[in-house]
């Protein structure tokens, strides 16, 4: 696909939808229905400036720290559990149980344990976003190719070198699939952790707007969240292309033949 075509595909539907929205909401007087131009103006006046520094950046910071630890811990623990059979057998049912707990219910608990602060919010993000990465890594390590594994053994590639050159790259496709889920879970938990007993952040501000009937502002907050999600997706794709180019190439070839 040519770059021009790709850009057209990327922006085509959004532009169409905005045009439709514009047409449908043109004569509307409903207070709760936002209009595109109004919303764009509100977006600008509400979020650029002080609020960006006070609310958006701290939220993004906590999200980044939370995701960093969720992904890092998920990979490290996943490699450890996946490559130790007794540990895996011991922990797997327990992990599935923890994964099944909806993370928002941990918010009150973590508030009691850690207090109402940044650490608590980061902990909420970690507690929810770690599972897809962790469980995918465990599953991936279990499924590494036996012939490759034998190759490593016969060439004396053991311990850390085995992890670095064989296991970690081999499970990267599963890890990335987990990371993709973790990103959206992290974003959700970022908002939720700020809705409880908080005085700043995106989640807090959006709830605040809604309570004060500042409906256009509330909508604009939702748009900001959407844009953050989009940003995460773009960064993810960029990284994934780089890290997994071999995987996509391999898949393309095996699908062809």
């Amino acid at each position: 696909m040519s770059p021009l075509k790709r850009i057209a595909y990327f922006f085509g539907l959004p532009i169409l939808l905005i045009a439709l929205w514009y047409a449908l909401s043109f004569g509307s007087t409903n207070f709760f229905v936002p209009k595109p131009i109004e919303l764009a103006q509100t977006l600008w006046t509400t979020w650029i400036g002080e609020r960006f520094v006070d609310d958006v950046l701290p939220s993004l910071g906590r999200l980044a720290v939370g995701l960093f630890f969720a992904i890092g811990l998920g990979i490290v623990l996943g490699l450890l559990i996946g490559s130790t059979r007794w540990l895996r057998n011991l922990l797997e049912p327990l992990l599935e149980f923890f994964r099944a707990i909806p993370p928002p219910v941990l918010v009150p608990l973590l508030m009691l344990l850690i207090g109402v602060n940044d650490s608590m919010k980061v902990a909420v993000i970690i507690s929810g976003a770690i599972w897809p990465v962790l469980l995918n890594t465990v599953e991936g390590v279990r499924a590494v190719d036996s012939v490759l594994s034998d190759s490593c053994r016969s060439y004396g590639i053991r311990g850390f070198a085995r992890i670095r050159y064989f296991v970690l790259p081999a499970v990267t496709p599963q890890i990335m699939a987990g990371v993709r889920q973790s990103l959206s879970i992290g974003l959700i938990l970022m908002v939720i952790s700020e809705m409880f007993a908080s005085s700043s952040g995106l989640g807090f501000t959006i709830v605040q707007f809604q309570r004060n009937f500042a409906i256009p502002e509330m909508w604009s907050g939702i748009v900001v969240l959407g844009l953050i999600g989009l940003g995460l997706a773009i960064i993810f794709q960029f990284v994934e292309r780089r890290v997994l180019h071999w995987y996509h190439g391999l898949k393309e070839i095996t699908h062809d033949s």
Partner: protein
Amino acid sequence: MTVSETTMNQPVQPLQPIQAVPMLSVRGLQKIYKVPGGEVEAVRDLTFDLAEGELVCLVGPSGSGKTTLLKCISGLMEQTSGTVELNGSKVTGPPKSMAVVFQEYGRSLFPWMTVRANVELPLKNQKVPKAERAALVDAALKSVGLDHVPKSYPWQLSGGMQQRVAIARAVAYRPQVLLMDEPFAAVDAQTRADLEDLIRTIWKQLGVTILFVTHDIDESVYLGERVIVLSSSPTVVQEDLKIDLPAERDQLNTRALPRFMELRSHVYAEIQRAKLGPVTEQITAQRKASLK
């Protein structure tokens, strides 16, 4: 420490003739797999030696335990009984001086590494200095005729080329013993012929001891200096045959030699006999006896 090291580096018994300790020695090897609901005896009793620098082919019918045997020899799997000795010392895990080329070339190279990185990895892991490593990798890639694709990824190459990468990796590693498990079973006939010649060339260049497993009779006779024929399961050595063909082999002329034909017919007959197995032989013997 230094004292014991120097004593260890000295020849162990200078008076002993060099041939006394075979490079590879398999004694009474047996492997029984435990499977749900019973046991499978893949290999019953295998005994043979490989002298240093020999090129030996191992033929046997499908399912005769060739892969099982190689896995035991290479220390990747524990045998049920019997011993494997490499240079006089017992094999209990994958030995440093051994390299294995697997049948599944598509699954034995790292798809996330370039051809070059694949060949280099075992050396890197052994902390071979960079310059030496580069020289070894270059030489190995050149010897298999792949010095033009070092930056490609394995999956961008054809099957025969991938297997050549796997061979280059083994060659660069400079093993004393090279084990190959039906390495050419999945490549086309022309590539296969080329690869067979490649193996003989490498063998002559490096003086490495090679145990080459195949189910192809012609291949075993063409390649080997010796052919060991395995019986079907439960597996024993059916025959150990010396291949007295000229050292310089050539796909056209060698295969047309009367001696080549004789040897391959002989191995073929042995394999047929092996397939029938000891039980059938007993029955035929009984029948003959009852006819009298």
